[in-house]
């Protein structure tokens, strides 16, 4: 379960990268994103992906690096499936990510540190 | 793959049949030539540059070999792309032949083969 935190951070990052694109933001929220919203989304994306990398490598060095690449691949796949095929479910998906992230942060806080 | 892939920038030779053959298949011959220099030329370039690297890096023998060998494919890939990057096929051939020769010369000097 501790592995869930770096993975959910990765998922959040790719989700934000996707939302920062005009067409995907429009699909979910039915309006164009403002420059500021895009900036916020991109910053969240970059911070969470780097945090994810840091957590992975801190845990298991080289093996962690490999795991990070694996998480990136899986996250990219999941985000890609939602935004290409299940566009109507993306709002729910976004909510789910936040819930998983909150849970895994809690787990991490209670056990990992 | 347009203008500068013509191999035939010299005066018409006596054997007109060969000339006609090369004219007709000019594009295909140019393609083959480019692949040849990329694959074979790239291989020799990599071989000689990686050997040169292994004698030049200031690490132990084992490390030198392992380091050169790990970098070899990167060099090969770059030379391969280079062969398709330049417009002029002539330049590609000349630059690769010259650089291989120069590196081999340098390597022979360093290893005392000359």
């Amino acid at each position, binding site marked *: 379960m501790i*592995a869930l935190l770096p993975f959910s951070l990765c998922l959040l990052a790719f989700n934000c*990268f*996707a939302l920062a*694109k005009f067409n*995907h933001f429009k699909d979910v929220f039915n309006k164009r994103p403002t420059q500021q919203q895009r900036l916020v989304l991109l910053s969240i994306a970059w911070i969470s992906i780097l945090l994810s990398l840091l957590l992975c490598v801190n845990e*298991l060095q*080289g*093996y962690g690096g*490999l*795991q990070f*690449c*694996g*998480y*990136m*691949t*899986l996250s*990219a*796949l999941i*985000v*890609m499936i939602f*935004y*290409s*095929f299940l566009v109507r479910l993306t709002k729910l998906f976004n909510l789910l990510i936040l819930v998983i992230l909150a849970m895994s942060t809690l787990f991490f806080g209670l056990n990992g540190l | *793959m*347009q203008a500068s892939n013509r191999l035939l920038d010299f005066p018409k030779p006596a054997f007109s049949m060969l000339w006609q053959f090369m004219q007709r298949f000019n594009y295909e011959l140019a393609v083959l030539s480019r692949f040849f220099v990329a*694959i074979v030329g790239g291989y020799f370039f*990599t*071989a*000689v540059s*990686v*050997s040169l*690297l*292994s*004698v030049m890096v200031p*690490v*132990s*023998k*084992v*490390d*030198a*070999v*392992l*380091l*050169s*060998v*790990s970098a*070899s*494919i*990167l060099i*090969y*890939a770059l030379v*391969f*792309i280079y062969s*398709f*990057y330049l*417009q002029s096929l002539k330049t590609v051939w000349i630059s690769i032949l010259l650089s291989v020769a120069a590196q081999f010369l340098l*390597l022979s000097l360093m*290893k005392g083969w000359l």
Partner: protein
Amino acid sequence: MKGSFFRSMTWLHTWVGLLVCWLLYLIFFAGTISFFRDEVSLWNQPSIHNIEQQTDRIGAQKRQIISGVDYLNTQAPNAPNWRITLPEERVPYLTYGYAKPKEPGQRRASFENTRIDPNTMQPLAPFVDTRGGNFFYRLHFDLHYIDVKTARWIVCFASLFMLIALISGIVIHKRIFKDMFVFRANKGSRSWLDVHNLSSVFALPFHLMITYTGIITLIFMIFPYPAQTVYENGIRGFFNDVSPSSPVTESLQGTAPLVPINTVLDQVYTKWPEADITRVIINNPNKAAATIMVLVSPGKTLRDQSPRLIFSGASGELVAQTDDELTGSKALYESLNSMHTGRLAESLLRVLYFLGGIAGCIMIATGCIMWAKRLRERMKKNTQPSWGLKLVEGLNLGTLMGLPLATSAFFLANRLLGKQVDERADKEILAFFLTWLCVFIIAFVKRDKLQWCVMAAINSIACFSVPLVNAITTDGNIFSYLRNEQWALFMFDSLFLAIGLLFLLQTEKLRTALQAKKPTPINTQEQKV
């Protein structure tokens, strides 16, 4: 310059891709299966299906080694080589083996192996002769039926072309992050292009890594030159330097009794208290030149060469060992190798590796199909397809539908061939290649949508029959695997059912497409014109 570079990269990407895509599909297909070669070997060998998971695998190793040495000393005290292979996470049985004297003309001595259930320490039921997962592992770089060295050169160059295709693909997919999640359904070759792009991009780090590191695993064959330049005795000199060896001990003459293995093991555990020993190899036992090599698992470190300690068999003292700390270059080389073989990957990472491999197969398959579709779209109306188009379409059908069918045939052969058949392993492999050949023959006769539909249906039936035949011919089945928590076997059977379903979906999709295209009187009129 930029426009022209872009176009030359597009041209290059298509050509290097096209020259080797079918071979690359084979390599990726077999390679992806190889990530689970231990599980495949397990499925292929019914006598080891019911071995229970050891409760204390590492703790039992000392005992197993001691009894192994005793056993081998009784069975073959003068064999040239003893090998004790301990159970691992994914390989549940224990092997005690000794080398039989080499026949004239043999390159390597064959082994007499006794396989033991580590829980009861009793010999297992005799193994059937099968290559198991190792067939797919070897297939992806040694190919088959051709000389190994030639095969490896071919695979190396194909992989180089793959690397070039990846690099040129990145260059031409300039909108790599802009268009990342675009998919346009039902638009002919454009849809295939989108799937091609998606499958390439989402697993791009994996593709680049696996291709580059793949060539690195064979690098000393294609570039022995650095070793030859730096070492006087060339590549041999290099190999002697890079692996720990014990030339002094090995040159001693005469006989000497083997030290009690306990003295050796105590030294191992002093150095590495938590050691997970994988193998113990004893060369020239009961001679003065005897060496005892103890290999431990590198665990989750990025090392491909197992850390090992080499002891003199006569005196029990340590004579050689792998480095504790790796230099930068050694670490680089070992990391590259270990990243490709992925031996360090445990369950989650291994599944991710498998996912990457599948993405690679999809990338290559969609590339092949897209090229055939493009050629067809460019074809002028009412002309016959060129031989080039026929070749591409034939190879597509033969490879993309043939390989899965051949794989099912391999596993069916494993279950259906009699246990005592001569050269059984070769016959299973023959079943694989014969099936593939049959699909190729069909593909070269006719390769329309109908043939694709039929092949998809056949594939579906074959996939469903694998777990079925398994249930009939062994005493386990997918439900019993679930009940007894035999996860590897359960996943294997489930995967075949899932893939069978996918083929069924494909059959349905193609069938409806065929029905839609059925000629009506108006259509045939147009075609006649």
